[in-house]
């Protein structure tokens, strides 16, 4: 929300600098995200704070001053220029040549009384270039304009950096500035600063200038001056001229009306327009501007109806306004021309003929304030198109005359229904934003009184006496019992009781003191304070906030430390990460959102998938077509990442640890098991200048080696086995299931070439992509935490090799098992170092060569003992594997 300091000062005296004020508000929870300076220089930042330097135009105090145009004369040689004679406080008048169209009506009218007040720039003044759109600046120099020398000028808003308006020069109201002498530095006339405050949902009460002023008063100890609510009402009483019927008090607790007759629709006064513009609203006309002005000032959104339209609809009788839920199939055309089919929860303002407006959100087209001379209308601050043709006013204009009688509504609407209506109809109006955050019903009569009086003052009508006020569901007065000791308990330090009372009263709470207890009554402009414990907590926040969080002392937790537990699952998971990084793999973290179609690509067409056969956790509101469900597997996203990296990187060794999401029958929430994914592809080493590097392409056994290394690093205890299996995403002969102590952990293998192809990794069989996906809990279940370290051998070992020729179909694991079993205690280790097929090994056979280490821990083996063991191994191989010893 934009808050001009000049406006704020109407309600509270401010002695702090703009920058200090911004810092105080920020610390108190009204975060000032920016300060816009108008003409005045940026001040020093408060101690310890930095401020972004502002590059706005600072008005030179000597050269940019208030000017009074005493006379406008025709330019002798140019129809589109005039000569303005400006009094700028010096003895002589300065003649400015200008093309400002808004001076033309004054041309050759003789001396002007009162004169026209306008910002005046001397020779040498720096102003923005009115014809440029890039914010570039210029310095005034003397030059001739159509033969007349000119060295100064009267300025447009754009030239001063106030707005983008450059249609004419900025004219200031005599009523407002007439008592300022010409020559007053412009900084003192129009200089201002506008705070941009980020309004969090809990400070809806501050979503208006008075609300911010109240905070300033509480924070600085200054007095708050509320705007007057007196109305000069000289017309016949409003009673009998309109009726209100509230059918849904929950949704519309209160509805008030005031009536103003015989108005003249025109531009609102300069001060009001200026304030609206500073707060980001576009002035429309005096009636609409007054509703917006009061909404900004007090926070109560208002809606002005054309009273005569309502009477006409009621057959010339006093209208009855009904607030109700829609009839089935009912429609409403809002003032932005949109035709809405209404939902059953949209609370409406209607009359007996039909809907007139969305309550609290947006008015209807038909009953809006109308003035044919006004270009476009917008009673609720909706941004409207500059191009009037696009707006649907033609229809209404054809049969309507300018509004003369205004029925002004101020009501109270339910937070939730306002919010739902805004969402379902995509209407984000200033009124809706306020009601959806909460406006206290007590604000309605205040708003309607303040606004009708302002309208009267600026449109010249007569106010009907009294207001219509239907308060169908009065808000309960909120009272909170607050023990001072509770404040101390939650804050951890003592704020003097007097200080607490003072701060609460400054925020307009009523406080009665009763021993340790404070009986606090919540003021009727705020809805954010609850009852009971919530209310206490709400008040403690108010106290701490106003006291200043920066003043709250710092302590070390004195409370007992809860028992600390060993977080085994996390420790093992982190150990696994380290083990894989040590093994040369790079961790990736991918999106957990994917599509069923993407994961379906993991199974070659025509095959049945071996991935979990369960439904997906599916998004009801996906934000993009490639992220519609929660994944079943890591593999698809890992392949995507590998494909992306393959464009620039040959060699990839990746892993990911993350969850997959598997709905469970009968449970609302899915299982979220964690998975480990591995992916290797490319050459084993990187080439270097000294030798070629190991550029062999990684294969299944590189993957298996990584897994073995990681399992060893983790100290997984028990029987680890790799069983040949089939899996739809893998090469049928190059895939295994990892089992630890008989439990299946997951699959590893060479990704099916057809899968590689659809994932843009190519169909090159010589460049396999190796991948694995394991269940993390199963993988880490048998990690050994306590284990013995073997003593370093003191006895020498005897090394012997054995090469066995066996049938090609016999798995190496079986051969090794036979060797180990036969070797007994003497055999310390058996390491396969060669697999050979081909001449002279017969077809259908292979030779497996093992390096055997024999050793006993306590004594040196004799040659004879080793020979005996070796022979036993050879024998076992012959009998159990039909192996031949290779020469």
């Amino acid at each position, binding site marked *: 929300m934009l808050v001009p300091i000049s406006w704020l000062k109407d309600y509270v005296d401010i002695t702090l600098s703009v920058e200090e004020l911004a810092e105080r508000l920020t610390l108190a*929870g009204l975060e000032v995200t920016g300060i816009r300076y108008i003409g005045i220089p940026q001040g020093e930042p408060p101690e310890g*704070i930095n401020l972004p330097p502002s590059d706005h135009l600072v008005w030179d105090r000597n050269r940019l001053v208030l000017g009074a145009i005493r006379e406008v004369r025709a330019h002798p040689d140019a129809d589109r220029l005039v000569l303005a004679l400006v009094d700028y406080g010096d003895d002589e008048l300065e003649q400015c040549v200008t093309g400002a169209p808004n001076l033309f009506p004054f041309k050759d009218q003789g001396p002007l009384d009162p004169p026209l007040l306008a910002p005046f720039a001397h020779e040498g003044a720096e102003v923005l270039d009115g014809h440029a759109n890039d914010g570039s600046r210029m310095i005034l120099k003397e030059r001739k304009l159509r033969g007349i020398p000119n060295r100064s000028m009267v300025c447009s808003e754009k030239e001063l950096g106030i707005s983008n308006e450059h249609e004419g020069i900025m004219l200031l109201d005599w009523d407002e500035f007439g008592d300022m002498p010409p020559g007053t530095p412009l900084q003192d006339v129009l200089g201002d600063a506008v705070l941009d405050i980020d309004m969090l949902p809990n400070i809806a009460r501050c979503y208006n200038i008075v609300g911010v002023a109240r905070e300033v008063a509480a924070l600085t100890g200054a007095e708050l001056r509320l705007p007057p609510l007196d109305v000069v009402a000289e017309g016949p009483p409003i009673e009998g001229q309109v009726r209100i019927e509230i059918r849904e008090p929950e949704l519309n607790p209160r509805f008030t009306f005031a009536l103003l007759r015989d108005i003249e629709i025109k531009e609102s006064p300069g001060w009001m327009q200026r304030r609206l513009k500073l707060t980001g609203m576009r002035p429309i006309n005096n009636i609409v501007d007054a509703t917006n002005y009061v909404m900004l000032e007090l926070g109560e959104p208002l809606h002005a109806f054309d009273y005569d339209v309502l009477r006409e609809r009621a057959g010339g009788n006093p209208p009855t306004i009904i607030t109700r839920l829609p009839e089935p199939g009912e429609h409403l055309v809002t003032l932005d021309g949109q035709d809405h089919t209404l939902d059953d929860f949209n609370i409406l303002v209607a009359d007996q003929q039909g809907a007139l407006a969305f309550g609290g959100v947006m008015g209807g087209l038909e009953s809006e304030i109308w003035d044919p001379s006004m270009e476009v209308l917008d009673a609720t601050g909706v941004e409207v198109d500059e191009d009037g043709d696009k707006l649907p006013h033609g229809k209404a204009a054809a049969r309507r005359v300018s509004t003369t009688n205004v029925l002004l509504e101020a009501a109270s609407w339910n937070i939730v229904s306002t919010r739902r209506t805004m969402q379902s109809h995509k209407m984000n109006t200033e009124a809706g934003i306020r009601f959806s955050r909460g406006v206290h019903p007590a604000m309605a009569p205040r708003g309607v009184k303040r606004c009708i009086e302002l309208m009267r003052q600026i449109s010249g009508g007569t106010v009907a006496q009294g207001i219509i006020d239907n308060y169908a569901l009065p808000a309960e007065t909120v009272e909170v019992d607050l023990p001072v000791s509770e404040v101390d308990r939650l804050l951890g330090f003592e704020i003097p009781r007097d200080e607490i009372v003072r701060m609460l009263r400054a925020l307009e709470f009523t406080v009665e003191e009763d021993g340790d207890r404070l009986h606090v009554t919540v003021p009727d402009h705020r809805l954010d304070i609850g009852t009971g414990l919530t209310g206490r907590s709400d008040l403690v926040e108010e106290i701490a906030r106003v006291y200043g969080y920066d003043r709250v002392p710092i302590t070390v*937790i004195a409370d007992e430390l809860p028992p*600390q537990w060993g977080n085994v699952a996390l420790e093992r998971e982190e150990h696994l990460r380290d083990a894989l990084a*040590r093994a040369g793999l790079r*961790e990736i973290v*991918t999106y957990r959102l994917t599509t069923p179609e993407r994961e379906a690509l993991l199974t070659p067409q025509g095959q049945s998938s071996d991935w979990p056969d369960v439904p997906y956790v599916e998004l009801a509101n996906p934000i993009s077509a490639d992220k519609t469900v929660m994944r079943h597997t890591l593999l698809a996203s890992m392949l995507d990442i590998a494909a*992306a990296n393959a464009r620039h990187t040959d060699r990839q060794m990746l892993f990911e640890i993350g969850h997959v999401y598997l709905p469970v029958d009968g449970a609302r929430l899915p299982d979220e098991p964690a998975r480990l994914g591995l992916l290797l592809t490319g050459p084993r080493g990187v080439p270097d200048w000294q030798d070629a590097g190991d550029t062999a392409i990684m294969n299944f056994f590189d993957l298996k080696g990584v897994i073995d290394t990681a399992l060893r690093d983790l100290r997984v205890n028990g029987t680890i086995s790799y069983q040949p299996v089939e899996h739809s995403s893998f090469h049928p002969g190059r895939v295994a299931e990892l089992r630890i102590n008989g439990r299946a952990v997951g699959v590893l293998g060479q990704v099916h070439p057809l899968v590689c192809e659809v994932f843009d990794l190519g169909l090159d069989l010589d460049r396999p992509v190796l991948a694995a996906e394991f269940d993390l809990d199963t993988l880490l279940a048998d990690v050994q935490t306590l284990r013995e370290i073997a003593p370093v051998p003191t006895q020498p070992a005897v090394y012997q090799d054995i090469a066995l020729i066996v049938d090609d179909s016999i798995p190496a694991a079986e051969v090794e098992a036979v060797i180990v079993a036969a070797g007994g205690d003497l055999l310390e280790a058996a390491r396969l170092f060669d697999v050979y097929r081909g001449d002279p090994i017969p077809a259908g056979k292979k030779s497996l060569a093992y390096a055997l280490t024999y050793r006993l821990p306590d004594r040196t083996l004799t040659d004879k003992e080793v020979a005996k063991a070796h022979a036993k191994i050879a024998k076992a191989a012959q009998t159990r594997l039909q192996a031949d010893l290779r020469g």
Partner: protein
Amino acid sequence: MLEQLDSIYAQALDELSDITTGDALSGWERRYLGKKGEVTQLLRSTGKLPKEERAAFGQRANVIKNELIGAFAGREEAIRQHELATQLEEGALDVTLPGRPVQTGGLHPATQTLREFYAVWAEMGFQVFRSRDVEDDETNFTLLNMPPHHPARDMWDTFYTTTPGVILRTHTSPGQIRAMHELGEDGTQPIRVILPGMCYRYEQISARSEVQFNQVEGLAVGRNIRLTDLKGTIAEFARRMYGEDKRVRFRGSYFPFTEPSMEVDVECILCGGEGCGVCKYTGWLEIAGCGMVHPIVLHNGGYDPTEWSGFAFGMGPERMTMLKHGIQDIRYFWGNDLRFLEQF
């Protein structure tokens, strides 16, 4: 014999002066001083001399032998020095040639930052507690003091699933409720945990926003947990994480599940508070939201809010990593380009 001795001596010295290699030197040693060397032989033949000459000869021969041994040692050292000098001279490398690359792996930056968080918080007694990604609406919002249609729900753009009431968690705060139920033993035990995890927001992916991101929530519940403790704890974290001398600032904020609520700023880690592009010239970086656990949340977690109190805080590891390393685009994190990851 004496003449012979002297002539061998002279000859040996003469030859020695020409020797420049270790091999030649060994030959010389064998020839003169070895078991069958000429000097040794002559010495052995001392017995053949007449008795009266033996003493003089023996004396002389020993002198010569020692002289030659000395000369040999001197020569040997000279040759060693020479050979070493030659080796050092010839062994020079072009040290500017590239080193041979060692292929290592590494951890994702998100993991690295999470671990830093774990370590710092563990020292302060906060242990890791993890909870689910797919949450129910009740735990994510309602139990955190945001009933349906509460305006504060607008603060989170939520992914809903096709199962009514099931959403992707928008923050790690639902973990507070789960931690209180799992660890609080019906509101009888104090708690000190951090809750890391992936969160999801319905947002267009851009350089500044992601659909998924990590968050680390903290929660302390006890019989005497105070606002001053919250400030002290967060300030301590900031000092350990960002440096002893870093100033910390607390300012009012709003979260439905804490009250009072605050935002925490730390003095900009890049400019030290002078003002720079990263801190948008404010000198401050926002590092956390925090507050005292709302009594309704304590109650929903099984605690009696009149006797128990607590604080909670939340931080974004990716944002921290970005600030620390001047990373301009959050999409790098889940993009997993190796040229990005390998810089960590």
